[in-house]
């Protein structure tokens, strides 16, 4: 009940925020929207299938670079970018997933980490293709066929783009909600709890994990596209392992057992980062300490604190 009231209040706050005349906070939230979508995908793997990926940043970067490459080719429509990122992510995730889903626990984590670092070194070293450490520019895209050229950058980001990104988050959350409550989601959950039993019930463990991996990658790439539009830059650090670590951090902070934990985690992480960074240059220390406390004492994250009784099933 509390969660529902808070959720409605938070959603209303997010919708009304651009009207409050605080462009700084409004632009601050834009990366949180991108992260929220990527984390919804990551959580299908971790909360859903029990696989903790340390290479999810690969797909976020893939989305970001897809947007950058399309910009270079003269494509301006954000819808085309999102669709292309989703298709590319799915086709990259399929072969990687086939190799990764045979493993669980730490081996899955290390293997996904290695793939992420592989992509990072590609982006970092192949200067002529990817721009190396300078990254690639992403020019302001066209939303739903509206050029909106008359708006300056802040007005564009805090106005049309803010609502566009929020809309994509809502659609993504809705799709993910349908997925986790569908027979597919329930089967995944069964696999997480007891793979041997799931197998004996006729659920193809590998195939379901692979499907979850691909869906997670698509969400990651879609989030990645939304992430690079505000900054206008896709750089190799998007694929670096610490970025994957941060994604897992956000997920844990929000709470992986709750459906909306990833969204909460992304928003709180971004706001907290801004607050701590404005207080001290040693914000990494504070964040490391917070992560340690969450891992050691609050493995269920903020959602676990808000809603202690909620069963892991939803």
């Amino acid at each position, binding site marked *: 009940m509390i969660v529902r009231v808070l959720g409605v209040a938070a959603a209303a706050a997010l919708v009304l925020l651009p009207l409050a005349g605080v462009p700084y906070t409004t632009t601050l939230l834009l990366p949180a929207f991108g992260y929220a979508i990527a984390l919804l995908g990551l959580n299908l793997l971790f909360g859903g299938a029990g696989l903790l990926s340390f290479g999810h940043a690969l797909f976020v970067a893939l989305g970001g670079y897809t947007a950058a490459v399309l910009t270079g080719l003269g494509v301006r429509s954000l819808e085309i970018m999102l669709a292309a990122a989703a298709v590319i992510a799915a086709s990259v995730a399929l072969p990687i997933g086939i190799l990764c889903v045979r493993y669980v626990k*730490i081996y899955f984590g*290390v293997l996904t980490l*290695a793939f992420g670092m592989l992509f990072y070194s590609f982006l970092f070293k192949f200067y002529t293709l990817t721009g190396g450490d300078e990254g690639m520019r992403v020019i302001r895209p066209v939303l739903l066929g509206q050029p909106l050229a008359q708006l300056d950058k802040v007005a564009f980001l805090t106005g049309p783009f803010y609502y566009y990104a929020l809309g994509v988050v809502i659609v993504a959350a809705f799709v993910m909600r349908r997925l986790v409550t569908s027979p597919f989601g329930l089967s995944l959950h069964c696999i997480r709890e007891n793979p041997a039993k799931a197998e004996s019930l006729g659920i193809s463990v590998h195939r379901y994990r692979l499907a979850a991996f691909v869906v997670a990658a698509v969400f990651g790439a879609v989030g990645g596209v939304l992430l690079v539009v505000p900054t206008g830059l896709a750089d190799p650090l998007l694929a670096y392992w*610490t970025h994957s670590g941060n994604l897992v951090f956000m997920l844990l902070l929000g709470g992986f057992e709750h459906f909306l934990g990833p969204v909460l985690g992304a928003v709180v992480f971004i706001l907290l980062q801004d607050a701590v960074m404005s207080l001290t240059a040693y914000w990494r220390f504070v964040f490391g*300490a917070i992560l340690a406390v969450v891992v050691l004492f609050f493995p269920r994250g903020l959602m676990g604190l808000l809603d202690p009784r909620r069963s892991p099933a939803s």
Partner: protein
Amino acid sequence: MRWALGAGLPTAGFFPVLLAAGLVLGVLGPPIERLLRPIYDRDESFQLLLTFALVLMFEDVIRFFWGTAPHQLGNVYLAYGTIRVGALSVPTYNLVVIASGAAIAGAMGWLLARTRFGRIVRATAENREMAEAMGVDMARVYTRVFTLGVVLGTVGGALVIPATAAVNEMGIDVIVEAFAVVVIGGLGSMRGAFAGALIVGVVKAVAIATWPEVEMLAVYVIVIGVLVLRPAGLFAKATA
């Protein structure tokens, strides 16, 4: 993380001091181990996460004490001079590092294979409950092994500093490479770790000499290859 710590000491003037600095930092081992203890029973993924948290924290601790500028010890590297081997001139310091690596590997092998402590460690790795039932104090074994790991990490970090420089981020880069090394060799295998380190080192050196773009790439290709073809690592059969 520990490498960077060992690396951060700019006071060290010459080789023995570098080693001593590494050893002294061993005192950090027990408290960190104590912090990690509650999650031994949980999924290893959480241990990986907690390590990530510690990396974040140590990076800032180093930044706080030593600032962000790289620290160099150029004079130490040159003070050792060079040796001519045939037509090649090799910096003596490089040979010292190689000799230290071999000596430490030998000492570790002796420690694990020949001493009482080594037998207990191997027994613990093999079967924790059984070792505990035989009267082994698990908490103490863990503390000691972890501290030993810290010491080796810091000594290793200290050794590379004269040749390069102590940089803030070195811990972050090294930690993934260390993972790569251990995975290639096989988790829990000493010989494997040694072989993995050699493979990664040589591959990187060859790549830099022939095709610099693939330096990092090649390491991860090997990791993925090993994990896919021999998930238990190249030296899976070896114990301890």
